[in-house]
């Protein structure tokens, strides 16, 4: 091969290498940017008066006097709106029955849309679900709902060859000639006066329980559940994994039995996580009956089984990478095998073992499938430490899935879902960073 070809080959490898790293970076950015942007939006956003009312009523947070003042200011405009509704309702009574019926059928949705926008109207029964007790708590949602209030969405089916088209009809036009026609421009103009949007920092999103299945409130039960599950899994898997690794590297004799054990371990590492989930249900809950039904304990055990092979492998590699000379030195000083392992080999292998442990912890925190059948519930309050043996818990990974696919008002609370994703990604990232930090620190200490 001549020099020119070799150079071209070398350069093309460099170029392809750089290229693939750049593609990865861009892909990561494309994935992460909306998560970060929207996730941050669950804490920092433009909140309305309704949000502050909700916080005060549900969590007892906020300045009461300030709220009273604000509500009074809002009431001025609300009164106008309510007055217009009353006037129209009175007008309806004077109409001919047919016309009245026609308007009534159009008036119902207007009322509902208005109620969604600014909260319950006077004269309504008190709602049971908390979500109906308040109007829009986030300004960007309020603007969306305002549009729904102002325009009726209709579908154009006229051309059967193409898909139906959505088009909007002004509701104001539908009420042309009645007193209600004034309502629409009034609400459009004075919505900020009614809802009083203001930049809000809601740290409670991370520390509050959810209210009415995540419509309001925060994600603390999920964060705590994830924490319990991951730490619980570590409690079981870490000691067991390190002991197993010590056995493999220091005590096991090479033989048929040992090679079977090793390949079993490797195979376990490749089993899909949903299989672990089903196994956990069948083994821990149905067979061993560690708890009556789903519980943090059962979930932790399942996660532990899932991350065990990774921990064993990481620990094994860490132990094998300890220079053999340390072991020789220790033994030559009259140390027992046990002592050598405890005082020389394990401390020297610690960076590697801990890295494996923390990465497994991150994996346990992020896994969904193993906890579906063993630990996770979609809605729940934060559980106490004493309840981990019997109670299931919400967890970030499972609730992200749940909010994305099964929640009845999924579209209304995308911000909560993004918030959860960001929280989970941050937790995993933080764990991995701490692993790197820990490794560097201990390695430095070992190297002197």
């Amino acid at each position, binding site marked *: 091969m001549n020099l020119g070809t070799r150079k071209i080959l070398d350069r093309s490898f460099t170029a392809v290498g750089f290229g693939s790293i750049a593609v990865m970076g861009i892909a990561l950015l494309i994935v992460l940017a909306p998560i970060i942007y929207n996730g941050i939006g669950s804490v920092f956003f433009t909140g309305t008066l309704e949000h502050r009312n909700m916080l005060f009523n549900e969590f007892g947070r906020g300045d009461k006097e300030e709220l009273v003042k604000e509500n009074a200011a809002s009431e001025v405009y609300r009164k106008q709106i309510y007055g217009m509704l009353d006037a129209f309702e009175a007008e309806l009574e004077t109409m001919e029955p047919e016309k009245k019926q026609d308007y009534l059928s159009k008036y119902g949705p207007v009322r509902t849309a208005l109620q969604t926008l600014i909260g319950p109207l006077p004269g309504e029964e008190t709602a049971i679900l908390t979500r109906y007790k308040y109007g829009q708590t986030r300004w960007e949602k309020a603007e969306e709902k305002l549009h729904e209030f102002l325009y009726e969405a209709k579908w154009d089916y006229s051309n059967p060859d193409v898909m139906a088209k959505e088009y909007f009809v002004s509701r104001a036009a539908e009420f042309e000639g009645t007193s209600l026609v004034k309502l629409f421009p009034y609400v459009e103009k004075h919505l900020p006066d009614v809802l009083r949007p203001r930049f809000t920092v809601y740290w409670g999103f991370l520390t509050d329980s959810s209210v009415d299945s995540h419509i309001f409130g925060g994600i603390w039960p999920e964060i705590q559940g994830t924490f319990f599950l991951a730490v619980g899994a570590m409690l079981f898997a870490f000691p067991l994994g390190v002991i197993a690794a010590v056995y493999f590297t220091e005590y096991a004799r090479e033989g048929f039995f040992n090679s079977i054990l090793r390949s079993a371990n490797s195979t376990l590492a490749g089993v899909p996580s949903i299989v672990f989930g089903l196994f956990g249900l069948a083994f821990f809950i149905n067979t061993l009956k560690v708890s009556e039904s789903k519980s943090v304990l059962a979930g932790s055990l399942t996660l532990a089984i899932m991350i065990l092979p990774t921990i064993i492998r990481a620990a094994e590699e860490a132990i094998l990478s300890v220079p053999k000379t340390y072991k020789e*030195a220790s033994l030559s000083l009259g140390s027992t095998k046990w002592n050598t392992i405890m005082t020389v080999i394990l401390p020297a292998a610690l960076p590697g073992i801990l890295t494996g442990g923390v990465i497994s912890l991150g994996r346990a925190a992020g896994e969904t499938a193993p906890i579906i059948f063993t630990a996770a519930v979609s809605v729940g309050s934060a559980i106490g430490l004493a309840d981990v043996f019997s109670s299931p818990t919400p967890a970030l990974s499972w609730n992200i899935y749940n909010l994305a696919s099964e929640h009845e008002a999924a579209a209304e609370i995308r911000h909560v879902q993004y918030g959860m994703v960001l929280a989970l990604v941050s937790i995993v990232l933080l764990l991995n960073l701490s692993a790197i930090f820990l490794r560097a620190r201990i390695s430095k200490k070992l190297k002197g």
Partner: protein
Amino acid sequence: MTADSRETSQKEQVKTANREIYLPSERKNISGGGTPHVVAKDFSIYYGEFEAVKKVNADILSRYVTAIIGPSGCGKSTFLRAINRMNDLIPSCHTTGALRFDGEDIYGKFTDEVLLRKKIGMVFQKPNPFPKSIFDNIAYGPRLHGLNDRKQLAEIVERSLRKAALWDEVSDRLDKNALGLSGGQQQRLCVARALAVEPEILLLDEPTSALDPKATAKIEDLIQELRGSYTIMIVTHNMQQASRVSDYTMFFYEGVLVEYARTAQLFTNPKDRMTEDYITGRFS
């Protein structure tokens, strides 16, 4: 070896066929030494089927320095490591015949290899301090054997470091990581670490092969200092080193102990043709 004695030894150089050999200076006989400390009787070591050391018969004399030389793969390290049972780390390794330490069978059924290693210290080819502080390195052995009193430990650490001629260099940084020392210092630290357990025998497995000449000279001086207090066995590739530091020399070839004699005699007047060929550099 002090500077003076090195000069004398240079005066004593003897020209052999094509190589300069330095003879050890006239050494004092060691009082109380010279009794058989380690005794091998038809002692063989196998790696699986392969016989690495073949039927060795030898008495290693107490408090003298015995060097083991021979070409690579001749079984000299294997023999050395058999004495404190470091070969146990190799699963396929087993022995026949007898190897006795103070009359007790090293490979006996009831021998506690941990106690044995406490009495037979070892220093390895590559300096292998633990990634701990200098103090903790030296104190490792005594702590293992149950000593926890900080003051006593400090005494042992100082004594051991002084014996290993390292005290003056490290006394002000005992709490620093031992891996920060130079290679030669690390090796002397390893000697000090071995001495801290107060062994009777010190096995040195090519202790200077990873060191520069200056550090090598220091280790050799150290061996001279320790001569008379410990039974020392040193495996070396370097024949000049063997002649400089040892009282007795064993020459191994392909697992066989070809010749075992006083160093001066072995290097000047070898009985065996093979020994002569080796020390004169006809093969290596």
